[in-house]
């Protein structure tokens, strides 16, 4: 699956390691994308982040209201300091707030993944104008 590799020994001065090298030699066009069976190192890491985030999301979004069904007496009692009923706070503030925090967390994680694999979005990715025989069509140094 790593035939036809691209350019890729970029001098990113960065991350050593087998994993990163293996990743850089992967040709994505030959890599099957299956959300349940990640096949490259990057996809594995990425999907770990995604599934973790999604699981936490389910809890912050649906957790408070479900807890209210399961334990109504505790949930409707008033919290100290702020004075909200627990369930109201959990739903009205926990829900949106939780998603916001998760979103920032995810974006940070992705940035870290990018660093790990030496990906730089701000570097201009030039395309040798048009008719090239570049065998990788789209990923350049």
């Amino acid at each position, binding site marked *: 699956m790593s035939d036809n590799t691209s350019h890729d020994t970029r001098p990113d001065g960065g991350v050593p390691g087998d994993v990163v090298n293996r990743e850089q030699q992967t040709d*994505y066009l030959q890599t099957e994308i299956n959300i349940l069976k990640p096949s490259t190192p990057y996809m594995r890491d990425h999907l770990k982040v995604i599934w973790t985030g999604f699981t936490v999301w389910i809890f912050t979004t649906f957790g408070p209201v479900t807890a209210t069904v399961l334990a109504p007496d505790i949930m*409707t009692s008033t919290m100290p300091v702020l004075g909200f009923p627990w369930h109201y706070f959990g739903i009205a503030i926990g*829900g949106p707030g939780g998603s916001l925090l998760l979103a920032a967390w*995810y974006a940070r994680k992705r940035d870290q993944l990018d660093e790990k694999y030496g990906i730089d979005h701000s570097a201009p990715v030039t395309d040798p104008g048009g008719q090239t025989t570049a065998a990788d069509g789209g990923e350049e140094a």
Partner: protein
Amino acid sequence: MAAAVPLQESALLPEGLNVSFKLLPAAIVSAMMLSFLVIGFIYKVADTDDMWVAGRSIGNIENGMAIGANWMSAASYLGMAALIALSGVYGLAFVVGWTTGYFVLLIFLAAQMRRFGKYTAPDFVGDRFNSDSARAIAAITTFLIGFVYAIGQARGMGLVGLYIFGDPGIPGLSGYQSMMILFMVITIGYLALSGMLGATKNMVFQYLILIIAFLVGLYATGWAAGYSTILPQLEYAQLISALSAEFSEPFVNESYYLWIATAVSLAFGTCGLPHVLVRFYTVDNERTARWSTVWGLFFIALLYLSAPAYAAFGTDLYSQNIRPAFGDPGMTSAAADVIVVLATQLSGLPSWLVGFVAAGGIAAAVATTAGLFIAGSSAISHDIYANIINEDASQRKQMIVGRLSIVALGVLTMAAAFDPQAPIAALVSYAFSLAATVLFPMFFLGLWWERTNRQGALTGMITGLILWLIPMANEGAFGIVNGGAGLGIDVIATWMPAIGSAIVSMPLVFVVTIVVSLMTDNPPQETRQMVRQCHSPRPMAQDRTAEEVVARRTDDSPADD
């Protein structure tokens, strides 16, 4: 929606609202709409003398505000506080559903869409599934979504308009209907004018004006009525215990199931809305796509954390000044829909301040409707007309078709909003159910499972459309079936409510799409590679969509795989 709705509903007259012509608020509304036009004109797109030269990038915060501005509709501004006041904890399902969906969008769709890089949602469906029929269905769905969503906005325009302009007393038309028509006409005029002037939407300005109007109203109301000082978003907690149990007691108005169904429908609907996804095609790169979403969620949260406070204040003021908000007859849904304005008025603030808040609500409705109409009309002119019917269509021809579609949308919306059977937020939710049922599965499966093919997509989308129509017919939405009474089948009404039907339909569409895709042929190799390209972490060359990267590769090495 089983909220208690007394009979005076048919006249749609919010009780307690000071319905009369007010000069200053009328001037403020006009000024606000004009300012959008003027700013759009001043900051209109400068000529791009050379399209091949890199221009100015749009940063994360600006993109984020555009995302926030997209969400400042009558549903967020007015409708949410309405449902929180009317239906207590059930109303919070809307707060949760309309914010948390953005996280799902972020992790599953944002970056991948950026790499796919087309123009519109039907573009994605048509190209990913190699099918003009799929494209057409997606375009029709986009048009439908724009239409249904706009009906909610029209209702908001009509109700708030009553505060600003009063009831003109046109024979045959109720005050609400006259106002609704007036502002819908203003919306179309606004679109036409901005088209002629070349004024583009300035999303940053729009967002700022609307959030300021809302927050000023909230702070002023809280302070004037003695509820809060510096942070009403937290201080309203004290008020909750004073309000009748129905405000905060869980599940007294609606069941747990309905709460979950609604939240699911709204969250996943967010990920299926064409006009939301389109923005991701145009951001600079994937990192920008991610961080813009984070900022967008922040700007949205500013409003969404404030709305419950407004609802609390409003409920209390209503109960003190008009009649107890809960019980029989309680607050009508018409009054609830304008609770934001009503609260500001009842707390004794001067009419210009109330007018400012009201103007915000109307401006939100007009701006959102304008945007929706463009999304709907572009589905017709770009996706159906230019891509399927007349492939050689010039820009001018497309523009003509687009303009006609806008007029058509306007007329349809006005007709449907004549007698809307539900509150603003509910009307808008129907559009979300549609998006979650028909489009989201296509986006998700299209991007994450390369095996999804044309047959699967077509079957899935058609199934989705049918499934969406069932509860709509069952509950008599838009007064169509049985003059509004609908089919009235209880089992469906309980387990597949129109307001949250996606909880049932979306999984079904997933199953159908997957099964049919497995039973039929693999999609072509180029298509599968296109999907793979969307997941590759390496930044793509500036001028490539995923499709083109693959096309290049295939040209260069024909003996592929």
